[in-house]
C-alpha cells in the first residue's frame, strides 16, 4: 500500500519483505538496546517497528536517531525484513516484520508530553499504555494529542462509517439531504436557546436550533417527500455528566406515510448502523405501549435485556388485615411486586431488610418495601404473619413462586411512585445480581405516549405541539379528557437508553389550532410564535411524519464507549466548557458596542438587575449587615455565584435525608440543683469586653430615633 510514494505503517506485510520503502509518521515508542534502537512508528493506518543499528544504518543516521523522543514527527527509508523468531510482537498487526532504517529525517520535534499517547506494547506480553488514569480535563486541553491515540482514531473513524452507512441507506431509499438554517427564530418552549445577537437589527437575536422541526415540516409542505439531514442541534440545558450543549442528530421526515413505514425504515437503518460495530440486532423490534412500559417496567425506556417484570398485586390484598397495605388501599393506592427468581441466597434477610427496605428503596422515593423469601413452598418474611392463608396462597400463585425465589413488593397511594420506585429497584437488582447479560442488545419501540402532561394549571405537550393525536374529537378545554389522549409518537429504545424518537405530525390547520388552544395559547401568542408555520398548513400540507436519532449516543453505544465525549472530536467538558479553546470567553467592549448590546439595558431594564439590587437590600436588612456602595459589585457577583450553586445543587440532589452535622447533636442537661447565675456574670467580667457600658448594663442605641 502506497500513497505519494509513502507506505502505510499498518499495512506493510510479509509479502513486502526485502523491499525498500518510505514511511512517515510519529514516534509511538522507543526501546534503546545500546547500539541498537527500536522504534514504533505510527501513522493513521497503524504501527510498524523500525530498527536503527550500525549493522545496516549509516553512522550519522544512528546519531540523529539518538535525539528521537516520543511523538516526534519523522520520515524514513528502510528495508522490510522478517523478525528473528521469538521476537514477534502479537500486539500490533505488523508484529512479524520490521523495517531496517537507512535514512531518517526529523520533520518536527515534540515538547515533553502532558500524558502518554502510546497504547501498544513493544514486546510480547508487555503492558500497553492507556489514558484511563489521565484526568479528562487534561485530555480535552490537549485534545489534538489525545486524538492521536489509536483508540480515539478508531472511534472517530467508526463514527464516520456509522454516519456514512446511514447516509448511503437513506440515499438508497430516495431521501434527499437538505440543509436547514442554524440562525433561526427563538421559541421559548422546550430547553433554553443559545442566542446570537444580530448586528443589523440591534437588540434582536437569532437562536441556534434545538432541532430543525419546523423547517423539516415545511420541506414536506414544499413537496420534497423524503428529507434527511445530519444536523448539529443546540440546547442550553442544565449540566449532566453525559450531555453536550451541541449534539448531532440524524433527522428525517417523509410524506404520505404512516407509523409502519417509519418502523420498517428505522429498524433497517439502525440495524445497518449497529452492523458497523459487528452487532446484529434482532428484527423486528418488539413494540410496547407507553402504558405497558410504565406498568411492567416503571419507565418509558425499559431495559428488556433481563426480565424482572412487575406483577400486579393490588387485588390480592383487597380485603387485607395487614394495616399498612389496608391504609394504602383505602386511599386508592396500588401494590406491585417483582419476583427475583432463585436469588434467595444472595438476598439474605439482612440484605433485604437493612439494605433494601431501609436504605436503598427509600432513596428511590418509596416509603418502604415488603420482602418475602420463598422457602419450602411457603413465604418467609418479617410481615408474612399478618397475611391471611388465602393471601399467601394468592401471592405464591400470582408470582409463580418457587423455592429460592425472592418476592419484593412496593405499596403506595400513588401509582406513579410505585412504578417509578419499583423500576429503579429493578435496575438496581439487575446490576447487583449480575442479571444484565453482556454483549446483548435489546431494541424496542415504545408507542402510544400520552399526548399531554399535567401542569399546575393546565397541560403541556409530552413530545411537541406538532405531534398528531390518536383522536381528533377532543374538547380542548376539558383537562381530564386531554390527559387521557394518546399520541402518534414513538421512541426507539436500546438497552434502556432512548436513541431517538419522533411522531406522525398534524397536517390540518384546524387540528393544529385546537392543540395550541388546549395548551392555553392565545391567538396573538400563536401568531407571534408560530404564525409562519400555521400559515403553511393552509396550502395543502401532506400527511407526514418522521424521527430524529441522537447520533452521539448511537455511536457511543455501538462502540461501547464510556461517554459520548469519546466519540466526539472536540467536545465540551461536563461544565459545557471547552478546555482546549477556553470557550466561552469574554468579548471586547468594542464587539458588544457594535452589536448594540451595551445599551441593551437602558431602553428595557435587563431582567434581573433590578431584582438583584433589591435582593441585596433585603439580605442586608435581614442579616443586619450594612454595605458601602463600593462593596456592592462584589456582593452582586457572590450572589450570582450562590444562584449558580443553587442550580447545581438542584440538578444533582437525590432523595437522601438531609444530613446537618457529621454526628447527631447531643442533648446536654444542666446537672440537678438550684439554678445559679454564671460566676462570670456575678463577678462583672462579662461587662469587661463590652464597647460601652452604663452601670451594670450593656449600653445600646435606643430602639427608636
Amino acid at each position, binding site marked *: 500500500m502506497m500513497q505519494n510514494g509513502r507506505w502505510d505503517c499498518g499495512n506493510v506485510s510479509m509479502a513486502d519483505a526485502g523491499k525498500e520503502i518510505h514511511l512517515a509518521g510519529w514516534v509511538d515508542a522507543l526501546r534503546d538496546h545500546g547500539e541498537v534502537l527500536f522504534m514504533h512508528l505510527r501513522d493513521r493506518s497503524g504501527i510498524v517497528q523500525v530498527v536503527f543499528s550500525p549493522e545496516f544504518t549509516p553512522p550519522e543516521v544512528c546519531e540523529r536517531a539518538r535525539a528521537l523522543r516520543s511523538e516526534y514527527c519523522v520520515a524514513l527509508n528502510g528495508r522490510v525484513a522478517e523478525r528473528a523468531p521469538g521476537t514477534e510482537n502479537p500486539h500490533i498487526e505488523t508484529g512479524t516484520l520490521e523495517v531496517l532504517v537507512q535514512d531518517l529525517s526529523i520533520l518536527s520535534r515534540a515538547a515533553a508530553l*502532558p*500524558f502518554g499517547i502510546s497504547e501498544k506494547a513493544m514486546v510480547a506480553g508487555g503492558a500497553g499504555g492507556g489514558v484511563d*488514569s489521565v*484526568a479528562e*480535563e*487534561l485530555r480535552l486541553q490537549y485534545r489534538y494529542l489525545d486524538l492521536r491515540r489509536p483508540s480515539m482514531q478508531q472511534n472517530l473513524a467508526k463514527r464516520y462509517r456509522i454516519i456514512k452507512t446511514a447516509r448511503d441507506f437513506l440515499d438508497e431509499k430516495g431521501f434527499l439531504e437538505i440543509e436547514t438554517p442554524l440562525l433561526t427564530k427563538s421559541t421559548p418552549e422546550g430547553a433554553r436557546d443559545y442566542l446570537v445577537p444580530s448586528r443589523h437589527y440591534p437588540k434582536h437575536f437569532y437562536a441556534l436550533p434545538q432541532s430543525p422541526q419546523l423547517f423539516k415540516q415545511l420541506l414536506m409542505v414544499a413537496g420534497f417527500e423524503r428529507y434527511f439531514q445530519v444536523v448539529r442541534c443546540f440546547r442550553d440545558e442544565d449540566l449532566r455528566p453525559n450531555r453536550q450543549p451541541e449534539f448531532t442528530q440524524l433527522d428525517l421526515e417523509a410524506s404520505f406515510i404512516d407509523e409502519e413505514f417509519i418502523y420498517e425504515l428505522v429498524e433497517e437503518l439502525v440495524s445497518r448502523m449497529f452492523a458497523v460495530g459487528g452487532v446484529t440486532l434482532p428484527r423486528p423490534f418488539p413494540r410496547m405501549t407507553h402504558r405497558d412500559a410504565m406498568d411492567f417496567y416503571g419507565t418509558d425506556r425499559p431495559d428488556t435485556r433481563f426480565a424482572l417484570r412487575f406483577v400486579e398485586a393490588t387485588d390480592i390484598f383487597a380485603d387485607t388485615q395487614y394495616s399498612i397495605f389496608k391504609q394504602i388501599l383505602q386511599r386508592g393506592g396500588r401494590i406491585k411486586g417483582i419476583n427475583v427468581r432463585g436469588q434467595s441466597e444472595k438476598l439474605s434477610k439482612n440484605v433485604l431488610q437493612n439494605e433494601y427496605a431501609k436504605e436503598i428503596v427509600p432513596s428511590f422515593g418509596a416509603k418502604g418495601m415488603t420482602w418475602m423469601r420463598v422457602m419450602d413452598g411457603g413465604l418467609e418474611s418479617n410481615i408474612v404473619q399478618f397475611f391471611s392463608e388465602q393471601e399467601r396462597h394468592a401471592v405464591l400463585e400470582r408470582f409463580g413462586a418457587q423455592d429460592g425465589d425472592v418476592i419484593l413488593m412496593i405499596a403506595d397511594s400513588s401509582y406513579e411512585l410505585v412504578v417509578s420506585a419499583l423500576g429503579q429497584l429493578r435496575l438496581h437488582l439487575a446490576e447487583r445480581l449480575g442479571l444484565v447479560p453482556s454483549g446483548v442488545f435489546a431494541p424496542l419501540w415504545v408507542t402510544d405516549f400520552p399526548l399531554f402532561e399535567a401542569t399546575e394549571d393546565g397541560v403541556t405537550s409530552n413530545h411537541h405541539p406538532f405531534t398528531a393525536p390518536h383522536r381528533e374529537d377532543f374538547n380542548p378545554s376539558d383537562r381530564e379528557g386531554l390527559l387521557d389522549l394518546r399520541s402518534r409518537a414513538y421512541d426507539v429504545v436500546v438497552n434502556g437508553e432512548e436513541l431517538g424518537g419522533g411522531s406522525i405530525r398534524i397536517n390540518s390547520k384546524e387540528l393544529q389550532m385546537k392543540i395550541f388552544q388546549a395548551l392555553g395559547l392565545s391567538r396573538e401568542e400563536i401568531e407571534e410564535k408560530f404564525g409562519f408555520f400555521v400559515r403553511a398548513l393552509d396550502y395543502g400540507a401532506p400527511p407526514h411524519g418522521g424521527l430524529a436519532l441522537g447520533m452521539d449516543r448511537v455511536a457511543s453505544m455501538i462502540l461501547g464507549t464510556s461517554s459520548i465525549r469519546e466519540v466526539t472530536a472536540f467536545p465540551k467538558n461536563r461544565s459545557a466548557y471547552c478546555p482546549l479553546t477556553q470557550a466561552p470567553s469574554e468579548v471586547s467592549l468594542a464587539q458588544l458596542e457594535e452589536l448594540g448590546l451595551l445599551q441593551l439595558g437602558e431602553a428595557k431594564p435587563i431582567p434581573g438587575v433590578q431584582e438583584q439590587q433589591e*435582593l441585596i437590600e433585603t*439580605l*442586608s*436588612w*435581614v*442579616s*443586619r*449587615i*450594612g*454595605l458601602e456602595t463600593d*462593596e456592592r459589585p*462584589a*456582593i452582586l*457577583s*457572590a*450572589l450570582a*455565584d*450562590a444562584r449558580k*450553586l*443553587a442550580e*447545581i*445543587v*438542584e440538578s*444533582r*440532589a*437525590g432523595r*437522601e*435525608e*438531609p*444530613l*446537618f*452535622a*457529621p*454526628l*447527631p*447533636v*447531643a442533648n*446536654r442537661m444542666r446537672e440537678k440543683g438550684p439554678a445559679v447565675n454564671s460566676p*462570670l456574670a456575678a463577678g462583672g*467580667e*462579662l461587662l*469587661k*469586653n*463590652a*464597647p*460601652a457600658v452604663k452601670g451594670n448594663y*450593656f*449600653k*445600646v*442605641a*435606643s*430602639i*427608636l*430615633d
Partner: protein
Amino acid sequence: MDSKIFSYIDPSPPAPADGGALSGKRAAVQSSISVKGWPTEAGSRALEGFIALEDATVVERLRAAGAILAGNTHTGELGFGLAGDTASQALKNGLVDVTLMTDTLGEGRVAAASAGVFGFKPSYGRVSRFGLVGLVPSMDCCSILGKSLDDLAAFLEAVEGHDDRDPSMGDTPLEAFRMGRGSSPGSERSSLSAGVVVQSLESLNAGGRKVFEEALRRVEKAGIALREVQCEDFDLFRIVHNVIGSVEASSSCGKFDGVRYGHCAAGAKNWNEMYLRSRGESFGRVLKAYLFQGAYFQFENYPAFERACSLRAKLAQAGRKWLDGVDMMILPTRCAAAHDRPAETVEQVYDIFPLTLPANVTGQPALTLPGFLPTSAGDLGLQLVGPAGGDRLLLEAAGRLYPRTEEAR
C-alpha cells in the same frame, strides 16, 4: 519573639505541670482559640479588643499535660481562609514545637503542607471545640501542626476526649486515641491499603502529577497497597461546603452584635442603624460576601440549603463506600496554582481548598505529610484521609512512610 508571627506573647508563662506527657513542649494557638486573659480577636474586627474569659478545653488540657503556651498567632478573618495567617511560620521558625489551628476548609492542612510540616485534622467529635471562635460549626475542627508525627500523636492524645461543654461531640464517645509510645508507630497492623481518588488529581498540572505518581511509588514501597477509586461526585464537595458553610457562617456570625464585645459603630441614631453599621464595619470583604451568600440560602432559597444537606448525606455515604476495602484515601493536600494571589472572592478562597474540604464535609480525619510532593510551587503535601474515628490508623500509616531516622525535622 517575633510579633509579626505572634498576635500576643505571654510575658510570663505559668510554670508547666510536672511530669505531664507534654512536659517541656512549646506550643502556640491561633488567636481564634480562647486563652483566659489573652486577647482573642480571631483576625476579625467583630472581636476587636476581646479578652477571653475562660480557657478553651484544648488549652486547659494542653497545660494540664505540661505544655508551655508561648502565645497566639495571627489568623485569617474568623479562621476563613489563610490571609494573614502565621501559625505555620511559628513552627517553621522553630519558635514552638506544635501549633493549634482551626480548620474550616482545610486551613490547617494547607498551611502545614506549604510550610513543609505535618498537619492533622482529627475526626469530627474527637477534640472539643469549646472555646474556639468557630465559623461553620458542623465542619470546624481544631487541627494540630507539628514537625514530627510523635508530637502530633502526643498532642492529640492530650487534647482529645469527651467534653460536656461541647454538645457537637455526640453522646457516643469515639474510641479513645492511644498511640503506643516508644514503639515504632508503624508496627501495629501488618497490611494497609489506600485508595487514590482519580478525580482529585484533575487539579494537578503535568509536573504535579508526575511527583504525585512518584510519591505513590514510595507509598507502595512502604508496604501500603494502592487502588484507584472513582468519585464521580468529587466536584460536589466544594459546592456542598460552600452552600452549607455560608449558611452556618451567616447563622453563627449572628452573635456579633457589637454590644457585648467587638466593634461598635459610633453615633448610631437607633438600634437598627447600630447593628447595620457595626456589623457592616466588622466584616471584611470576602467574609461579608460569604455571609450574604449564606443569608441568600437562609432567607431566599432554603430548599437549596436542604438539598445541599441531602447531597452531604449522599457524599458521606459515598465516602464510606470508597473506604470499603481500603483503609484510607490518598490525595494531594493542595493544588499549586491557587496560591499565587491573595484570595479576593469567596470563589478564590475555595480555589485553595478543593482537596482538603471533603474531610470537613464528612467529618473524617485527615493528615498531611511533608516531603512527598516537592514542586516548583513548594510542597503540595501528601494527604491521607481515614474513616471517621480512624485517627490512629492514619498516624500509624504515616509512621510507615518515614523511616525513623529520616523523619522531617
